[in-house]
């Protein structure tokens, strides 16, 4: 009987129980904290990848028109609604083209036929950068890359735009 007692001494027993209980308590404290810290990672990716920009496909012409819309941006805990802009038109094949208006030089907003001297081109007011209708930069002007194009899809006759994809320099 005394041998059996020796197998787990009082000291060991107390050690085990205390470590066990302590471990549970620590885990109970840390788990919610950890959950909280990595919460944004666990959130399902937002559906907001594509946004309805409020333009019906039938209203898109071969002349670029400016559309402004807002996206919901969640950066960790910080939510904001930054504005986005695109120039949208149909090319000769009837495909929809959506170009980012952000000049690839220093980031001003370009406009279609923004200069009377250069019809049928996108014009950057800051340093006279120019792009042809398909968004390719005109050689000899400051920009070194074409305008980015937006990811797009059409649903129920409405245009949805996603991310702007940069293009390689010409």
């Amino acid at each position, binding site marked *: 009987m005394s041998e059996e007692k020796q197998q787990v001494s009082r000291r060991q027993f107390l050690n085990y129980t205390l470590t066990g209980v302590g471990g549970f308590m620590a885990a109970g404290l840390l788990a919610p904290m950890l959950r909280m810290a990595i919460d944004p990672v666990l959130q399902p990716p937002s559906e907001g990848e594509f946004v309805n920009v409020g333009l019906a496909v039938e209203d898109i012409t071969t002349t670029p028109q400016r559309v402004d819309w807002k996206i919901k941006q969640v950066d960790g805990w910080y939510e904001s609604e930054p*504005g986005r802009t695109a120039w949208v038109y149909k090319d000769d094949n009837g495909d929809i083209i959506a170009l980012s208006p952000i000049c690839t*030089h220093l980031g*001003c*907003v370009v406009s279609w036929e923004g200069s009377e001297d250069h019809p049928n081109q996108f014009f950057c*007011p800051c*340093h006279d950068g120019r792009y042809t209708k398909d968004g390719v930069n005109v050689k000899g002007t400051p920009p070194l890359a074409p305008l980015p194009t937006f990811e797009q899809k059409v649903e129920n006759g409405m245009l949805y735009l996603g991310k702007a994809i940069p293009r390689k320099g010409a």
Partner: protein
Amino acid sequence: MQWTKKDMELYLGSKEYFDTAIIPIIPFQLSQEANIGKSTSKREVLSVFVTEIERELSGRLLLIPNYYYLEFGDKDEEAKRLNNWTEEISKQPFKHVFILTFDAGWKRHEKDLDANLLWLPGFQTDQLNSTEILQMIRGQVADVVELIRSYW
């Protein structure tokens, strides 16, 4: 460009392309409680305003941090301080320095300022984020951008 680390690195890398700066000046007061709404909207609307202007012309225009002053304070004193700001900016060199305000009180002190004063009539709104208001601001921004470009 805005006065942030990221933007200023870009600015320092291509300084030769920047020749225009804009200083938003914003009044502050607590003494006239009846007019608090009017005063706060000057700050809120102007912030949206200058952010939009900066977005349009970010490659050539530097947005200076907001300048605050007491709404019913001594404008002669403030004009002197503002001229110090203008001097600091001009020697970089910036060819065009604009001061943007919704406070009509500055119109009378325009001649004391070294920078170009752009006074715009402000407005009060509870729905700064509504589409109509943003549409309106965008329209006004386009006009101001046109004005700034006429100096280039």
